[in-house]
């Protein structure tokens, strides 16, 4: 069974640009979560989507947004990039109501210059 996949693996942008990151969940999983893992800060919860709707978001500004498609894949958009947005962005998926069993993808490493 295929795990969570993410693309691209690496992304280099400059300040002020927009970044789009993509995630495909494990087959059968409808919940998708996004996390940011910045150096020294640990994993921080960004967004949770289920059945196409944003269900919850962490303590991040509105320039972090996303969506979930009918096939449950998801996209994370980061607008007006800042240097401190440089981080590993991780996507996880789970069955609905089973947030304690989230399975992570390999991540997208975003570098903002």
């Amino acid at each position, binding site marked *: 069974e295929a795990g*969570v996949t993410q693309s691209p693996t690496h992304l280099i942008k400059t300040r002020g640009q927009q970044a789009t990151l993509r995630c495909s969940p494990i087959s059968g999983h409808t*919940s998708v*979560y996004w*996390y940011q893992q910045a150096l*020294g*800060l*640990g*994993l*921080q*919860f*960004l967004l*949770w989507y*289920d059945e196409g709707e944003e*269900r*919850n978001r*962490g303590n991040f500004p509105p320039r972090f947004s996303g969506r979930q498609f009918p096939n449950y894949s998801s996209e994370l958009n980061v607008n007006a990039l800042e240097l401190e947005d440089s981080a590993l962005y*991780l996507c996880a998926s*789970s069955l*609905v*109501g*089973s*947030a*304690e*069993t*989230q*399975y*992570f*993808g*390999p*991540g997208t490493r975003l570098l903002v210059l």
Partner: protein
Amino acid sequence: QKEVEQDPGPLSVPEGAIVSLNCTYSNSAFQYFMWYRQYSRKGPELLMYTYSSGNKEDGRFTAQVDKSSKYISLFIRDSQPSDSATYLCAMRDSGGGADGLTFGKGTHLIIQP
């Protein structure tokens, strides 16, 4: 005070030793407790999760939760060089729908051959 505290290490032990990894937390609403393993430049891998207090064993791994002390542990028996990784504890409460996990910053473990 951060919600979840975890000693960053590094923790270096000889092969075959018993390893003890720990986290403390402040939010008494946490009910689910997870341990993830993350190899360098990879996404976190779910090792095991526990609901409420008690012990759970899976092969060489044992998770313990003491809610009265707000303290959780992961024990690794017969440690192997392949266990060298960063170990992350994570937690969530049981309220409402699923939401993001709260992570510790991780402990870097080195098993010396």
